[in-house]
Structures are given as C-alpha cells and as structure tokens.
C-alpha cells in the first residue's frame, strides 16, 4: 500500500499545525462558529447530536495494522472505546472534544493518516473496490489511480468552496463493488480497442433527496490526462453548480439540468483549455505510486483445498469468503454485523485484534468496505480455519455477508442531528428476527439498507430492500422501498406505499421476503424475483 514520502508527511504535518492554530483561534474567540465551521468540517469534525464527531479518512478503504492500532488507541484515549466504520470506507468517533482534536490529528499523522476533507464542500475521501489487488476480475489495481486523485484533490486551492460535497469512486472491474455510478464522479479503468489503459468517467450520480445514476460522460480518458480531465469536470461544477439551494447543489443536479451532452461539451471545452496549462503529473508519478501496490510476496505451489468438515466454518467460508487471484489464497470478509448488534461498530479491542490478524494472516493489510465491514484481502487458505476461530472468539465471526443480516445502516437519530428516525434499533430487530427464524440462510443474497433521513447515508435507494426513516408529526415512521441495486445494473428502489411504525416495518420486511420465497424461480435472488414479478404482489401482501 501507499507509503508517504517526505512531501506527503510535510503536508499532513502542516495540516495539523494549521488546525491547531484554527482551533486556538476559535477557542479564543477570534473565529466565530460560522467562520470556523467550514474549517473544522474540512478536518472531519462535526458538531453532532451528543458531542463533536470526528471522521477519519481511510483512503480507498486501505490500511495496515499500525494504523488500525492507532485507530483503536484513539477510541480508548479520546472517545468511549469504539469506532464506527462508515458507508464511505471511513471511520468515525462520536464523543470527541474540540480541545483534543488537534492532538488526535497529530497522532494520526504519525501513522500517515488524517481527517482531511472528510466533510465540507470539497472533494471527499476517494473510495474504491474493497477487493482491489486481490480479485482476479480487475484489469488492474485501481488504487494507484485513487491515490493520484487523492493527492490532486487534497487542499486543491480552486475547489475548497464548491457548491456542495463531492464524492469520487474508482474501480477497475466490470463487477462494481463500490457503487461507482452513485457517486458525483465514478471512474472505471478500462482498455480501449487498441488495448491501451484509460478511464471511463461517469458524472452526476448520487443518492439523497434526488437519487440519480451517473451517466457516462466520456468513455475514454487516456491515463496521462486523468488529472486534467478531472480538473475540467470540477471547474465546470465550481463555476456553474447551483448555489441558491442547498438541496439542489450537487453536480447531479447540474448534469441533469444541462443534460449530459451539454455538460460533457462544457467539460471538453475546459479540458482542451487546461491541456495547454501543464497541470498533469508525468506518468512517472503514476508509476511511482503504482510501485507501492505490487503484489505481496505470495507463496507459490500452495494447495487450494479447504477442510470444510466443520459446518460452522463451512458456512462462514461460503458466506464471507471470496475467490483470490492467487492459488492457495482467499479473501476473508469480517462481518461487523453480529445479530442484534450495531452495524459497523467495533470496540477498541476488536480493532486491535483485527490489526493483529491482518499482520499475522493478510500481509499486514485490511480494507474497509462501504457496507461497513472489514476485509482481510490476502489470507492463505491454510491459515483460514485458525483465523476464523480467532474471529469467532471475538464476536467477529458472524457468517452473514450479503445476507439480510448484513444491513447497511446510518447512525440515525441515536447519533445524528440530521436524522428523522432511529435506524439502528430497526436494523437490530430485523437481524434478530431473521436469525431466529433461520430465514437468513434461505433468503440468500439480500442487501438491506436503512437511512434515518432523506440524506441517504445508509444508501437506502440502492438496497434490494431499503428503509427510509421519516418524521410523521413528531413520531418515527418508516417507508419501505424495493428493487434498488448498487452494482453494475444500478437501479433505484421504489416506495411500496404508506409507511410503518418501528414494529410494523419489521413485519413488512418479513412479508416482502415471504412474497419472494413464494415466487422465486431457479436460483433467483430477491432482487431478481422483484424485477421479474414487479411491485404488485408485494403491495398486495403489505397492504391487502
């Protein structure tokens, strides 16, 4: 994975000094809250429902054990002993003090980490495929490109006061594991007819109040023009994105209102101009970064066999493990969704353990997924059983990846001042109900996502089953959506009808799954059956 050189280190160190100074000036009253807020947001510090909340960046979801240990230490030293892994591959802490924040950033800087631009109207953490570098189905590891973009976007002087937040995802496979088309810019590395590597740019996706799937804006940008083209996309947005209405300020609205062809045309014009300005790093820089992402020292000649005689282990392998490109290796997903638990939360002890396991069994590397789970990307099959036993002992061995128990849930009204309803208790009730009845296994792949408000941080629009919490005259109420999908066949969910209270929504989810079970054919997933039979049978079952 990427390691800082003296330049990268100088930048994070300067950022810590800058924030320390800004915090001092705030506490002394030289900065008002209105002046300080954008500054602290661009260091990931929110003023949230219970306290300040700090969102630490995990660039493209990749980290090593030393970094994980520091994340655990921060939880213990400055917070209440746990952290929350987010739907953008970051981690956040809910009980931070402003007066501690500069020291926390200093601790992070020592292990090449930061909270730069994890909030605010700027370019945010660049996300990627959690299986990058381990999967056989990518044409190349996308992360060097994400790193190139990360450096370009950090403290970019022109783009620190955008109309709104800006989220970029980079992938390099046909299988989209990063919900790429639901980003402001989604980049897929591709090969053209001549076999040359370049990037397809999708611009204008997003969820929130007005979910949209990003249209293809340019099918091929050569590798040595990536930064220039990205800059053109951002400059057009900075100049023409709406600033009159916070809810219409994302680039998806601009692309939608201009039309994708006109937006693409304006970008081409700006791109042609910027190509004369020498802003592109040389390809040697991409090569320098890519050298950090070569394969670890895989052993060769290893057996691909796995002893699956232990049925619990066998289930965990089936649900949580994915094929690795190297014979004898496997990708292991760690579920942070124990039945009845808080999705995405991990205690300091668990974070320390995952760090140790990564060091022992995964070439010292971990990934955070946007589904709020952790991945150990490079595990020898020979080590897998031992690894699983250690995970089990720490309540990290739940075998439920991509099942109905693997719920994506925003923190909701329990933690978030933007929320209208609590999301975590709903997730807990659903996971318990389906685990108890044994239905999780029967249902197979079912991506359920819960958001506590229309901002959709739980990605409910992209759930096979989605739940949106709303405020109905001061009482929490929940809308049910069906048929969303974040993958390559991206689709947005449809509301079934009137909402439900907290117990009602659990029952409604159960009824929807019963309709699926009654109608499914030939190995169809829930999503497939829904797409085939449509909403009507579900509406009938829900509302009679």
């Amino acid at each position, binding site marked *: 994975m990427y390691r800082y*050189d003296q*330049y*990268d280190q*100088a*930048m994070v160190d*300067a950022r810590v*000094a*800058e924030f320390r*100074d*800004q915090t001092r*000036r705030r506490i002394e009253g*030289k900065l008002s809250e209105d*002046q300080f807020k*954008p*500054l602290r947001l661009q260091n990931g510090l929110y003023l949230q429902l219970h306290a300040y909340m700090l969102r630490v960046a995990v660039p493209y979801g990749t980290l090593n054990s030393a970094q994980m240990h520091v994340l655990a230490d921060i939880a213990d030293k400055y917070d209440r002993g746990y952290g929350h892994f987010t739907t953008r591959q970051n981690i956040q802490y809910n009980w931070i003090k402003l007066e501690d924040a500069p020291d926390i950033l200093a601790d992070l800087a020592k292990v090449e980490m930061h909270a730069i631009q994890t909030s605010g*109207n700027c370019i945010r953490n660049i996300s990627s495929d959690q299986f990058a570098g381990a999967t056989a189905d990518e044409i190349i590891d996308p992360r060097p490109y994400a790193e190139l973009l990360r*450096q*370009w976007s*950090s*403290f*970019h*002087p*022109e*783009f*620190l*006061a*955008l109309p709104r937040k800006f989220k970029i995802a980079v992938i390099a496979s046909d299988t989209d594991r990063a919900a790429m088309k639901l980003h402001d810019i989604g980049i897929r590395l591709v090969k053209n007819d001549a076999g040359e590597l370049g990037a397809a740019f999708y611009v204008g996706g997003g969820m929130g109040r007005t979910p949209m799937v990003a249209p293809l804006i340019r099918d091929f940008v050569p590798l040595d023009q990536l930064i220039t083209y990205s800059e053109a996309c951002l*400059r057009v947005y*900075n*100049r023409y994105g709406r*600033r009159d209405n916070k809810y219409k300020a994302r680039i998806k609205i601009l692309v939608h209102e201009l039309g994708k062809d006109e937006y693409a045309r304006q970008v081409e014009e700006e791109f042609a*101009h910027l190509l004369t*300005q*020498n*802003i592109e*790093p*040389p390809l*040697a*820089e991409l090569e*320098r970064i890519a050298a950090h992402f070569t394969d670890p020292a895989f052993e060769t000649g290893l057996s691909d066999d796995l002893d699956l005689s232990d049925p619990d282990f066998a289930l965990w392998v089936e649900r949580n493990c994915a094929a690795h490109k190297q014979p004898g290796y496997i990708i292991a997903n760690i579920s942070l969704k124990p039945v009845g638990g808080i999705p995405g939360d991990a205690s300091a002890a668990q974070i320390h353990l995952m760090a140790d396991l990564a060091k022992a069994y995964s070439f010292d590397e971990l990934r955070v997924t946007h589904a709020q789970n952790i991945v150990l990307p490079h595990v020898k099959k020979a080590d897998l059983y031992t690894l699983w036993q250690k995970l089990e002992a720490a309540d990290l061995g739940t075998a439920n990846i991509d099942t109905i128990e693997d719920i994506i849930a925003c923190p909701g009204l329990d933690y978030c001042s933007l929320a209208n309803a609590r999301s975590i208790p709903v997730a807990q009730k659903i996971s318990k109900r389906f685990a108890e009845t044994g239905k999780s296994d029967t249902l197979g792949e079912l991506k359920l996502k819960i958001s506590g408000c229309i901002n959709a941080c739980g990605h409910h629009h992209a759930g096979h089953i989605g739940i949106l919490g709303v405020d109905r005259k001061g009482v929490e109420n929940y809308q049910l959506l069906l048929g969303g999908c974040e993958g390559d066949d991206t689709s947005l969910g449809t509301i079934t009808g009137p909402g439900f209270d907290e117990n009602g929504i659990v029952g409604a989810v159960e009824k929807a799954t019963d309709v699926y079970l009654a109608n499914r054919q030939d190995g169809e997933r829930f999503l497939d059956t829904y797409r085939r039979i449509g909403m009507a049978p579900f509406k009938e079952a829900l509302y009679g």
Partner: protein
Amino acid sequence: MVDVLRFRDDEPVGDPAVTVDAFSEQTNASAVRVEPGDDARDLIPFLEQLRLIEVDFPSFMDGRGYSAARILREAGYKGELRAVGDVLIDQLSHLRRCGFDAFAPEKGLDPADVEAAFNRWPEVYQAAADDRQPIWAKRHGITNG
C-alpha cells in the same frame, strides 16, 4: 490590523472598478470588478488594457472567485488581481495560489495571522496559478515550464 495586502511593486490603480456589465459599454476602463455570477472569460479580449481586476467574495464559502482568478491568469492577465469582500485568514494561501496578488478584506486582519497563513504550506500538491513547484514536479525533477 491589515486593510489591504498587496504583493506588487507597481503603483496601485486609482480608478474605481466598474462592473463587468458597465465595462462592456465603457471599454476604456482600466479596472473592473467580477461578481460570482459573471463569466471571467468575457474579459479575455481586454486583458492588455486592464490594470486591476477585483474579484468579489460576498461570502467566503462561494468559491466561484477562485476559478475566475485562475482563468484570468491562465489567459495571460498580468495586472493586479485583487480579492475583495469576505476575505479571511484561512483562505489567503489558497487565494494566492489561484493567482490573487492583492487582498482587500472587509474586516481587518491580524498581521501575525496573515504572515502565518501565507507561510502555512511547505509544499503544494497541484499546479495552480502561482509559481510554486508541485510535489509531483519535485519528485521527478521537473522545473516549471
């Protein structure tokens, strides 16, 4: 308190800046003020005669002025480029990188804070409108071309 900061050796322009709209009728003016909604490229045919371009920041969170500034410098504008309005300490270094060489904040700025702000960044990641060599250029021995 600092009222106007200026990083130029030449004499400041005395004429008041006209709006972009007024400028289209008064094309012998040497000073113009760009608002966030204006298109800075409208001034490109006149850059030779302009000695002062003010870019207004009614709110420091409206970042259109940053693009306007870079566009003007990219087009070859060599005169004074002045950020006016809600110009605060924490945006100074970014404004400078976008090509501003003068600053007229609405509210006075503490000189010590100003100096710290301009000296904040030992390196820069991107090429912009200033002369600073980006980190990628330093890494690969590329001097400004």
